[in-house]
């Protein structure tokens, strides 16, 4: 199998100011993610699960070590193009005060998906296709999360980084979103890095799991 994302000796802490850092969240972490795989990241709150995804998305830089995408250092790549290939779905969806359709169009890669395709994805996620003209800020958090997911898909990413996207949803919608994500990612041969607290997801699906603990990552 081909490695798509690799972390070598990565240490990370958030910046306190221009020169100082907070205490270390990750220390000399090594990680290798195979192409087209789905992996879960679990661990207690504040251990650095979201930070790990932010690092891979290039929203943060490691203090030391390197992160590779397709064998190339991410800081040597065009960061905007890379973020379209490695898409991050945040825990709390951010909707802009415009229509759902306009929110979807915010993705720079939007030209690649037709309106019919958008409607199809929309319907399959349990959203009414007529809702495209609705104000995005009026959506429920569950609906907004699904719109945010479609917005990520618009860029046709190779890797999806999911930061507890099902956390704000009820059980029914949670499983529905999970099944849809599985379907789309499989069809589009995507790699998924999924941060979750949800035991039902972790136990039910036989995917590789990593535990973040004491600034390190362990495969479980």
């Amino acid at each position, binding site marked *: 199998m081909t490695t798509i994302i690799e972390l070598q000796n990565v240490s990370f802490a958030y910046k306190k100011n221009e020169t100082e850092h907070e205490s270390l969240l990750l220390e000399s972490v090594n990680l290798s993610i195979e192409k087209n795989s789905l992996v879960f990241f679990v661990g207690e709150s504040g251990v650095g699960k979201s930070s790990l995804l932010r690092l891979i998305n290039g*929203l943060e830089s490691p203090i030391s070590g390197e992160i590779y995408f397709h064998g190339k250092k991410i800081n040597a790549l065009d960061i905007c193009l890379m973020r379209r290939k490695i898409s991050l779905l945040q825990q709390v969806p951010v909707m802009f005060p415009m229509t759902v359709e306009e929110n979807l169009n915010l993705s720079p890669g939007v030209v690649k998906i037709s309106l019919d395709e958008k409607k199809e994805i929309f319907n399959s996620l349990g959203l009414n296709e007529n809702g495209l003209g609705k104000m995005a800020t009026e959506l429920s958090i569950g609906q907004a999360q699904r719109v945010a997911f479609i917005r990520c898909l618009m860029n046709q990413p190779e890797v999806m980084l999911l930061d507890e996207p099902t956390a704000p949803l009820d059980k029914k919608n949670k499983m529905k979103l999970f099944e849809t994500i599985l379907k789309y990612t499989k069809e589009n041969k995507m790699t998924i890095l999924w941060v979750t607290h949800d035991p039902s997801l972790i136990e039910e699906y036989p995917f590789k799991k990593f535990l973040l603990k004491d600034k390190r990552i362990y495969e479980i």
Partner: protein
Amino acid sequence: MKYRLIDPTLFDMLLVGILFFLILILSVRERVNLEKQLIIGSLRTIFQLIMIGYIIEYIFHLNRLYIVLLALAFMVLVATQTATTRQKKKIKGLFGLMGFSIFLGTLITTFIVTFVVLKIDPWYSPVYLLPLAGMILGNSMNSAAIAGERFYSELHSRLQQVETLLILGHDFKFACAKAKREAVKAAMVPTLNSMMTVGLVALPGMMTGQILAGANPVLATKYQIIVMLMIASTVTITSVIFVNLSMRRYFSKGQQIKKYLFKDN
């Protein structure tokens, strides 16, 4: 009718004190608690204006290029310092960014007004250059200060949106475009508002001064039109330059927003 400017005697000037006591009485009676500031403010007004009156008279008398340039440099420095102090967030290199924006905004407008429009001769003639550049500089300073403050607060309140746009693969310029627009707008609005009502509610200071000094009201109007447009121009140029230069300081080279700059101190 021949215009004659009344020259108030020292005694006449002391009579202005009536207004000062009126403010003082009202301030005490209404417990506004500003008596100390009022006294200091009044003393500073008298001292600073007397001082500047003599300095300007001396500069006019000398009529030397280097003296005019020195005076302008001093004015730019004070304007930069004032605008910098008014910023809540002291980003790296703020003084330099502020100084450059104010200097360039003032230079462009002053050049067009004095060199192209009025064609003053010599070009550094302090009688024209100092008051005009002073007016331009004052407005440039205010616009840079307003734009800077507003840009920071807009970015602060839109932090999640800005980061979402970065995540989607946009660059930082696109991500903060809305905040930029709002900051420039905020800097321009006071000037635009005054352009809408100028002459309808009150005559502007410069026009009033010229009329009191005996100038023909039509001539005073011409100058006031120049002044209004030069203020609008400097406000726009300065705020656009400052916001465009300072936005880079909020992002790292890797198109990451420096979140630590938005932590409450």
